[in-house]
């Protein structure tokens, strides 16, 4: 047991620990206590898995009065901007903008998005100017001290449909429709273990657009028998915060005219507006992914060189 050489330090340790151990293990059943503590730890890890399953079962029981939302998880769609080389589909963003302008904008503001940034969607400077001019912006005060209306210019932001949140809430049954600038990043259904671990490797970051698309296409489903839907709300099993929401089904087939021949269906509208909202929330996504690839390639090459250098430096030294 003891080291042979004259190393006093470790020798002393060995002696002291051995005697201490003998002293104590005779008195109490310390090993038993330790073993049970170790078992407790293992049991903990085991119960974690078991109870998660039990909780899921509990929920499944009363379909008419669910306690966890959304009732259905968002459907995972194929998005052009997913993955390490993802880019926005400009035609899709333009269609999404059309849906926003003709449908959503009636109630939802998008106050962080400036007209000038719409050039990202493939519009020319002149087209953006014309588009901005369609809007009336309340500006001022002028030299006489009066507020005045003028046509929009590219540096303006999308004007809100209501003068303030209170007006928006009053016109919409008591809840102001959320601003849409960041909606695609501000919504996301929890992925849960172990999926969030896989998400790291699949680079799943489309929870927002998936959610919006599922919500917009989820109004057709009928509530289960016996479920109470509060008055003035609409059942949607994809809604994140309850069985139903104040917003009625906003989309119907052929509601928005597409001039590029894309299908004029609720599903297509929902995809397009979800993609557009992702752009609105993350306009520099393409630059981010492009830069990221270069950075990673650089780190990989530089890392490989440093590793080889490290091997050479340490070659003569056992460690």
């Amino acid at each position, binding site marked *: *047991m003891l*080291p042979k*050489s004259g190393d006093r*330090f*470790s020798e002393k*340790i*060995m002696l002291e*620990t051995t005697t*201490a*151990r003998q002293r*104590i*293990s005779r008195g109490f059943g*310390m*090993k038993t*206590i*330790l073993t049970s*503590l*170790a078992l*407790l*730890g*293992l049991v*903990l*890890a085991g*119960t*974690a898995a078991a*109870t998660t399953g039990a*909780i899921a079962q*509990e929920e499944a029981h009363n379909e008419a009065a669910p306690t966890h939302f959304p009732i259905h998880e968002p459907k995972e769609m194929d998005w052009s901007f997913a993955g390490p080389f993802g880019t926005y589909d400009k035609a899709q963003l333009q269609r999404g903008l059309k849906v926003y302008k003709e449908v959503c904008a009636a109630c939802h503001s998008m106050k*962080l998005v400036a007209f000038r940034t719409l050039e990202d969607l493939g519009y020319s400077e002149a087209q953006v100017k014309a588009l901005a001019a369609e809007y009336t912006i309340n500006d001022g005060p002028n030299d006489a001290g009066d507020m005045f209306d003028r046509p929009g210019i590219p540096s303006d932001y999308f004007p809100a449909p209501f003068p303030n949140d209170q007006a928006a809430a009053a016109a919409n049954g008591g809840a102001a429709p*959320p601003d849409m*600038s*960041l909606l695609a*990043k*501000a919504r996301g259904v929890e992925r849960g*273990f172990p999926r969030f671990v896989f*998400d*790291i490797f699949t680079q799943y*970051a489309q929870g*927002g657009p998936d959610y919006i698309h599922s919500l917009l296409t989820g109004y057709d489903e009928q509530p289960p028998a016996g479920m109470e839907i509060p008055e003035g709300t609409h059942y949607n099993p994809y809604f994140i915060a309850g069985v139903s929401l104040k917003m009625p089904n906003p989309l119907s087939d052929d509601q928005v005219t597409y001039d590029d021949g894309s299908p004029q269906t609720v599903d297509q509208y929902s995809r397009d507006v979800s993609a557009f909202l992702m752009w609105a929330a993350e*306009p*520099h996504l393409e630059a*981010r*992914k492009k*830069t*990221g*690839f270069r*950075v*990673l390639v650089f780190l990989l090459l*530089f*890392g490989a060189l*440093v590793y080889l*250098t*490290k091997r050479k*430096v*340490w*070659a*003569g*030294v*056992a*460690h």
Partner: protein
Amino acid sequence: MSEGHSTYTPKTGIGRWFDARMPLPRLVYDSFVAYPVPRNLNYAWTFGGILALMLAAQMLTGIVLAMHYAADSTLAFDSVEKIMRDVNSGWLLRYMHSNGASFFFVAVYIHIFRGLYYGSYKAPRELLWILGCIIYLLMMATGFMGYVLPWGQMSFWGATVITGFFSAIPLVGDWIQQLLLGGYAVDNPTLNRFFSLHYLLPFMIAGVVVLHIWALHVVGQSNPTGIEVKSKTDTVAFTPYATIKDAFGMLVFLFIFAYFVFYLPNFLGHPDNYVVADPLKTPAHIVPEWYFLPFYAILRAITFNIGPINSKLGGVLAMFGSIAMLFLVPWLDTSKVRSAVYRPWYKLFFWLFVIDAVLLGWLGSQPAEGSYVFMAQMATLFYFAFFLVVLPVLGLVETPRRLPNSITEAVLEKNKGGGGGHPARATAAPETKG
């Protein structure tokens, strides 16, 4: 280590002139070039350097972000969005800073667990360990206040919940809470003082880091065997050996960091923080940043009154107690052997503790209801048992494995044993290097 005399000899006239007046180059040379480090340090020892790098990166990105940020409750949220949309490379700065905070904590947790595994806190490194614990506390305060600055829903409600802890303290609790908030609720004064402190604390961290490194250079690094350095053959020079190894460790770490910054920048955040703070709308589940989740789980695990201590105060005490445990580790651990490598029982409990900490983290992210509460209570029990029972008792009853006589002996044994590199050269080299 420091008792060894300086081997610095300035080569130029300017060098000699400087050395006679203010020997800063000598200090740098002695600390980062000639400084002897144990030859058997593994990659777990690269996290000290990684943490220094992360601190510098957080300060640099933070200083630029502060140039564009407006610490006012009516402007803060939009000013962050302005950074994300209009400031040149603003999205990069902001994502580096927010993910940098997370990776700072990733690195610090690995650093702390490394210390626990190899017994790095044992004499004569108690003060070094405590300085590290202070840095960790300062980091927690900085991280928490930084998360409030974007003024999203989680910022606001996280701040409301966390400052609410202080009101549980008897007598002075309300006063402390109001001092922190600058009022009775989280509002503009809170944001202003948090911004000020968020800017200040990193510099305090940097100060304590200097003390931490100073203490380290007095007692020298621990190493995987836990045996003190005994002769010159046990060590190699910091440069080039440790510098190149640290550099490689940093690059691997930066690779993973960059992967998140560029491809999953919001993975570690919460969607609700992209909704502007609304004092009238409480989010369904208020969760703190992931790096606080184990402590949050401990806080919520105390659902019962203990004598005069109600469950709220009990939770707060348990939470602060769980951090206080770290400060006591050097004296709670009674083992004379440092490294878990030679402590089979401790090794088992160490890994159970790691599992327990991860489990607590997951429980912290779940709603405090049903069987989650019981699981959190059991996990909390094990957390405290690890420090208060396992550490003291194990040192007395465990039979450690045979310790090698020296670091060099351990290294040579390992290389002889199995497939480690170049045995012939390895045995020849140690005497000539160092």
